């Protein structure tokens, strides 16, 4: 089956390559119709590959907006940015409901990324409740099976290697948050990698919200662990009183840069991967060449896609790890020897 598909693609591509050989790398300012033609010609060949939706998307985007010139940058931004229209490209689009109620003057209508957040929550709830139920029916003598085993291994990893080793004493309270944030980010990242999905974690508002949770929990834990006096003392970083006028603002800013760094890291990582995949695909359209498409765009896009799979796990882990680290730093009672580590993160 696969061999047949590949041979069909070859049969389609090789004569075109031969005939177009003369102006393969010629960058000419052709009119819109040629671009559309090239794009739509590439679309049937693409479904055999992993990057199929990405390859197909620009063609459809080009077809979608008939009026005016459209740049690759616009298509990329259209894909990455939030929207009130959920595109399901060949079949049309869903206009998401606008919510008329606007509490405090903010618009809380449903957008593409809200849908993805809800989808991630739904997946998380289904998996979590199923695993929880299977654990409840399990006696301590039995070992978990299948999905429950995977989830349990991840939870155990987060509990011992992330929470326990970074927070130390009293880590149990933070385990639910850390586990939820890990799985939430992981599922959001992975949903962005499947066709027709969008990366909610590639939106700075979502990552900002998650980082705000970490921030609030960190501050609350710090106040609870050290009290108001201890917290104030922490801000002076144990220096001489004459240095307080410098140290206190620095420490205060440090409190805010941590969640900010978390926000930007996750957002930029997830956005960058998608921009790179799109840019690689667009190289073929900008150069208007099948050779480039087959030799550069598709293989490199597949490579980046696989890298993105790894990054999806890595960034979920890093966010969780750093959250745990910040909580651990905030609740640390003993001394100020941890400021060297803290300083490295600023």
């Amino acid at each position, binding site marked *: 089956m696969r061999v047949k598909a590949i041979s069909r693609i070859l049969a389609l591509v090789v004569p075109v390559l031969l005939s177009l050989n003369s102006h393969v790398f010629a960058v000419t300012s052709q009119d819109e119709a040629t671009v559309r033609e090239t794009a739509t010609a590439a679309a049937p060949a693409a479904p055999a590959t992993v990057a199929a939706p990405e390859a197909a998307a620009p063609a459809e985007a080009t077809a979608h907006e008939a009026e005016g010139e459209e*740049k690759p940058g616009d298509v990329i931004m259209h894909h990455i940015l939030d929207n009130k229209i959920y595109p399901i490209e060949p079949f049309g689009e869903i206009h998401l409901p606008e919510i008329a109620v606007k509490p405090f003057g903010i618009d809380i209508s449903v957008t593409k990324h*809200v849908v993805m957040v809800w989808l991630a929550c739904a997946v998380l709830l289904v998996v979590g409740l199923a695993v929880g139920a299977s654990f409840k029916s*399990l006696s301590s003598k039995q070992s978990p099976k299948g999905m429950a085993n995977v989830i349990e291994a991840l*939870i155990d990893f987060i509990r011992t290697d992330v929470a326990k080793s970074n927070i130390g004493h009293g880590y149990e309270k933070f385990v*639910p948050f850390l586990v*939820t944030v890990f799985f*939430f980010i992981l599922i959001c990242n992975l949903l962005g990698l499947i066709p027709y999905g969008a990366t909610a974690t590639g939106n700075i508002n979502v990552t900002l919200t998650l980082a705000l949770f970490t921030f609030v929990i960190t501050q609350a834990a710090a106040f609870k662990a050290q009290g108001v006096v201890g917290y104030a003392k922490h801000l002076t970083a144990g220096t001489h009183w004459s240095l307080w006028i410098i140290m206190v603002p620095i420490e205060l800013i440090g409190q805010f840069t941590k969640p900010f760094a978390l926000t930007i890291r996750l957002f930029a990582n997830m956005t960058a991967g998608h921009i790179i995949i799109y840019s690689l695909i667009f190289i073929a359209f900008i150069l208007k060449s099948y050779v480039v498409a087959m030799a550069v765009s598709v293989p490199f896009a597949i490579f980046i896609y696989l890298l993105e799979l790894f990054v999806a796990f890595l960034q979920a882990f890093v966010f969780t790890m750093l959250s745990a680290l910040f909580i651990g730093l905030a609740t640390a009672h003993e001394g100020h020897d941890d400021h060297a580590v803290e300083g490295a993160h600023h």
Partner: protein
Amino acid sequence: MLTSGIILLEGGLLNPNPGLIFWTAISFLIVMLILSKFAWGPIVSMLEEREKGIQSAIDRAHSAKDEAETILKKNKELLAKADAEADRIVREGKEYADKVRSELTEKAQQEAQKMIAAAKDEIEQEKRRALDVLRNEVADMAVKGAEKIIRTALDAEKQKAVVDDMIKELAASRN
């Protein structure tokens, strides 16, 4: 390029969207509350339970090992004691046997000595008696010889024959 710039500014990468923040916060909170009650709670408690179970199993194994070691130690001690006891018994038996043997040997030797001494005494007595008897006999013989000599003629030849006779007789009687 202008259009994309406008897109960036209008719905840019870094644009705040309060609605999305609101929905994300609400959804995340709800999911976290539900899951920490129904999923993470049971799983974590199960993990803790299992950890405790493993710890107690390890503890039990350790205590069993300790117990076994003490028993082994005790057994070894008992065995050593029994060995010593046996050694002692054997040694004592040997000593006793040695003593008995030496005693017996000594006694036997003494007995033998005594017997030899008694035998010597007897021999001495017998010899003395024999000598006495011999002396008496010789005296008798000498008296008889002297009688005969005196009775018969006192020639030299006859005297000599008589004496020879007497000696022969004596020798025969002595044998």
